[in-house]
């Protein structure tokens, strides 16, 4: 006891050791740099939104719903509107969803669940990833050759159908990749459990793997839809109208084989006009485009949550 009493008490020594260094300067600098990067990107976004809102909200105040119904024109800023752009974008989206979603998910299921791990299949896998990185203008040229020219008897040339198909193959690789990743994230124990009770491969996929992967697949599809909504370059190549667009009393299905325009194309066209009045219209059109994209995302999130609750 006497010896122990001489030196410092154990608890004091340990308490001293536990205190560590006073300040972690490097750590604080690093953290600040990370925060700065985040704030910078947020700031840019905020400036963009503020700028667009400042220029565009006036148009909605002055003209309201009339702007949403108005026609595409480059001569008269008081009557110009985004009506045809909205309709055109929605028609294109129908094509993207109807074509890219089933084909993409089916391709992903094949690659993940059925294809054996051969060199050829790995080659396909790598190249689908490469396709996702191909610039969109290249898809535009592809669409021009295949859908506008070769398949003209079917699509009718520079029509909604040709544009929609072009956007569909543009986003197809993204749908395939995200779906594959969602399928891969489903644990193998689920598949084994299904096989273990005597289910066939298809029954296991349909009843267990796909429902488990559905939230991820839906998220991926929505991301690709958002991309399709904003694409401009390929649509210019495959013939979205940038000028006056004739409208007749046409039915829903006939409209697929008519000329069209789309919201980003409208924005593109108005931006290049020298007339000051079109600046405000451009901002207003961008606001409409943003609202459409965000609504698509919201729908997907609702769908995803509904699937997840079923578990």
């Amino acid at each position, binding site marked *: 006891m006497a010896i122990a009493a001489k030196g410092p008490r154990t608890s004091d020594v340990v308490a001293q050791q536990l205190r560590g260094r006073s300040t972690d300067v490097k750590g604080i600098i690093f953290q600040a740099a990370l925060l700065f990067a985040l704030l910078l990107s947020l700031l840019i976004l905020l400036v963009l939104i503020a700028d667009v809102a400042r220029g565009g909200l006036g148009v909605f105040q002055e003209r309201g719903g009339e702007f949403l119904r108005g026609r595409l024109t480059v001569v008269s800023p008081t009557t110009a509107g985004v009506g045809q752009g909205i309709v055109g974008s929605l028609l294109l989206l129908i094509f993207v969803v109807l074509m890219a979603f089933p084909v993409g998910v089916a391709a992903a299921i094949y690659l993940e669940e059925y294809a*054996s*791990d051969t060199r050829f299949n790995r080659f396909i896998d790598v190249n689908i990833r490469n396709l996702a990185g191909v610039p969109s203008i290249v898809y535009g040229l592809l669409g021009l050759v295949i859908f506008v020219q070769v398949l003209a008897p079917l699509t009718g040339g520079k029509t909604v159908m040709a544009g929609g198909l072009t956007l569909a193959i543009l986003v197809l690789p993204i749908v395939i990749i995200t779906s594959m990743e969602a399928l891969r994230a489903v*644990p193998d*124990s*689920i*598949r*084994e*459990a*299904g*096989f*273990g*009770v*005597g*289910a*066939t491969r298809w*029954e296991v996929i349909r*009843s*267990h793997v796909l*429902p*488990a992967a559905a939230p991820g697949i839906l998220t991926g599809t929505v991301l690709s839809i958002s991309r399709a909504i904003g694409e401009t370059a390929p649509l210019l190549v495959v013939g979205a109208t940038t000028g006056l667009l004739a409208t007749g009393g046409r039915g829903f299905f006939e409209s697929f084989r008519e000329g069209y325009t789309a919201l980003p194309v409208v924005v593109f066209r108005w931006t290049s006009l020298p007339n000051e009045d079109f600046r405000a219209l451009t901002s207003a059109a961008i606001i409409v485009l943003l609202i459409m994209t965000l609504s698509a995302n919201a729908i997907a999130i609702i769908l995803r949550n509904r699937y997840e609750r*079923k*578990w």
Partner: protein
Amino acid sequence: METVTTDSPRNVHIDMGARKPNARPSGEPVFEVADLAVYYGPFRAIRDVSMSIAQHQITALIGPSGCGKTTMLRCFNRMNDLIEIARVEGSVRYHGADLYDKRVDPVEVRRRIGMVFQKPNPFPKSIYDNIAFGPKVAGFKGNLDDVVEESLQKAALWDEVRNRLKESAMGLSGGQQQRLCIARCIAVRPDVILMDEPCSALDPIATGRIEDLMQNLKDEFTIVVVTHNMQQAARVSDMTAFFTAEVNEEQDRRTGVLVEYDKTEQMFTNPSDERTENYVTGRFG
């Protein structure tokens, strides 16, 4: 090719008729394995396994890690088919029929030979749907509610879940999940239940319940269980097979071999192979 009577399987044909009058004629084996070897790519996981498995008994496969017991188990219901690089040589006969005949549909095999896995793996669905899936894909036309209740009763889980059948199976405890997996397996009325270390992820109380359950189930099903827990093998099984791994120094690969196969009591009290004795007395593995 009745080569089952080579060295390993001794005392397989013990009399069960006295205890279980309704059982099939005693001595009829459910599985007869002859000269079995399994390869994963170029590497041999097990070799030269010959054994037969008797009906309405619990057969335990024991041995150290990497000795091929799980590989062996997965040969019985062709689960190894799911591993692309796996290849099976030799013969596995099920009630005399070759399981690896080209015309055999593995799906049909797995309807008769069910499996319970190491880690409880309920489907991320309701308790009810977990049980009902097997009968549904098997084309069952009767009352599913009855099947679900009966299966859960047999798996000793009914009283705990009867009021929450529509709730997610993921909310059950680990032991309950494993009993749910057993119930799911029972629901398709298999002939054999394969269990791959069914208690390794469970606490002792849950383990005890599963072991009791196995005793109740063996009147109706033939059970083959892989375990690395020797006490468990001694407690529950009628027959025990001891596997060990032969290490190939050059390739740094292990190949599993069947060392000894006998009545469990014999294996744990008076094994004839020194390696078995070392293992069961805890000097090795």
